[in-house]
């Protein structure tokens, strides 16, 4: 080691232990991870819409991080000093469709997503229940049971078809304010029906008259 190398190494090593408390940092990591997961779900929703809201193929499986979830899968780890492949945070949009399909196939719908969001303490932003459905769908794909049974159709709940259309509406990046605008434009009974109509068009590959 050169002289300046020794001095730099000493400067680094004499200050490295001023690092923050790992326990406090870890607690914060757990909180942040949950936020990231929700953000990621939203990104997947948008990504799924960009692909036409109906395209599908395999995908990755995410670890479940929500309350009550089982720990993530165990994996083999080796820790050599060499650099690994470049990290990438690109989510798989296809996974979303599989999760939604699993959710709807099990008979769950919009009202169930609202109930699940309360149970899991997940926020519903702008009425978008897509991330909750995706989480539930993932659990179903993992062979787990959801904490509630599906709401029987015909009890005032939303049908799976309508639910899928509304989800497609939000997946394309539209929100409640857009639904209000579209309701005026299309003269539908209310914004909800505008969401259904909009989702129907999006699923058919059509574009809407306004941008999200």
């Amino acid at each position, binding site marked *: *080691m*050169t*002289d*300046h*190398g020794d*001095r*730099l*190494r*000493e*400067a*680094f*090593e*004499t*200050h*490295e*232990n*001023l*690092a*923050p408390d*790992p326990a406090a*940092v*870890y607690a*914060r*990591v*757990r*909180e*942040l*991870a949950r*936020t*990231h*997961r929700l953000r*990621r779900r939203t990104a997947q929703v948008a990504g799924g819409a960009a692909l036409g809201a109906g395209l599908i193929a395999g995908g*990755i*499986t*995410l*670890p479940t*991080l929500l309350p009550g979830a089982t*720990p*993530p*899968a*165990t*994996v*083999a*780890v*080796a*820790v*050599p*000093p*060499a*650099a*690994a*492949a*470049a*990290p*990438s*945070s690109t989510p798989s949009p296809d996974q979303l469709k599989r999760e939604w399909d699993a959710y709807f196939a099990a008979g769950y719908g919009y009202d169930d997503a609202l109930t699940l969001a309360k149970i899991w303490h997940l926020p519903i932003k702008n009425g978008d229940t897509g991330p909750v459905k995706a989480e539930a769908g993932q659990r179903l794909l993992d062979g787990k049971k959801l904490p509630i049974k599906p709401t029987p159709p015909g009890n005032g709940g939303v049908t799976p078809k309508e639910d899928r259309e509304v989800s497609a509406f939000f997946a394309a990046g539209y929100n409640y304010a857009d639904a209000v605008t579209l309701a005026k434009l299309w003269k539908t009974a209310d914004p909800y029906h505008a969401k259904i109509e909009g989702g129907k068009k999006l699923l058919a590959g059509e574009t809407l008259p306004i941008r999200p």
Partner: protein
Amino acid sequence: MIVTFEQFAVARLPSLLRYAVVLTGDRDLAQDIVQEVLARAQVKWRQVSGADAPEAYVRRMVLNEYLSWRRTWAVRNVHTVGERLVDLDDAHGGVPDHAQDVVDADDLWNRLATLGRKQRAVLVLRYYEQLDDDAIADLVGCSPATVRSHHSRALKTLRLTSEHQHRIHAEEKS
């Protein structure tokens, strides 16, 4: 060995925090960066753990986060008395009474704060992580020649080159 994210974090978090502190020179920024990186790593843990070297993968994420960090960077870089790690060290009685080399280390630590992020990263990767130019180039995203350029300029800024040369020169004269 088989580990979950939790096991990985418990085992490697202290080391990651030390690395981040050395990399950033700022305890708060180091904490922010490690928190952000580990949160993302947890969300995509299967992908991270599927890498040949998960720890190297995460350390690389820390480096990338540091090099691309925008939020509050300018604010954090305006230190006042009591905010610098060296000041905190002083407050804990960690500095001068003793060896001159400790004082020198603190002085050098302060001067490191004047470097650009890539220059500092190159020094940390070479002298703290003990990587060669090729490995550093891969991590930083530039050529080995650029690494050497960053290294040379960093030493010049830190006045280490001239001191080193002066010292050799003086020794040769004596």
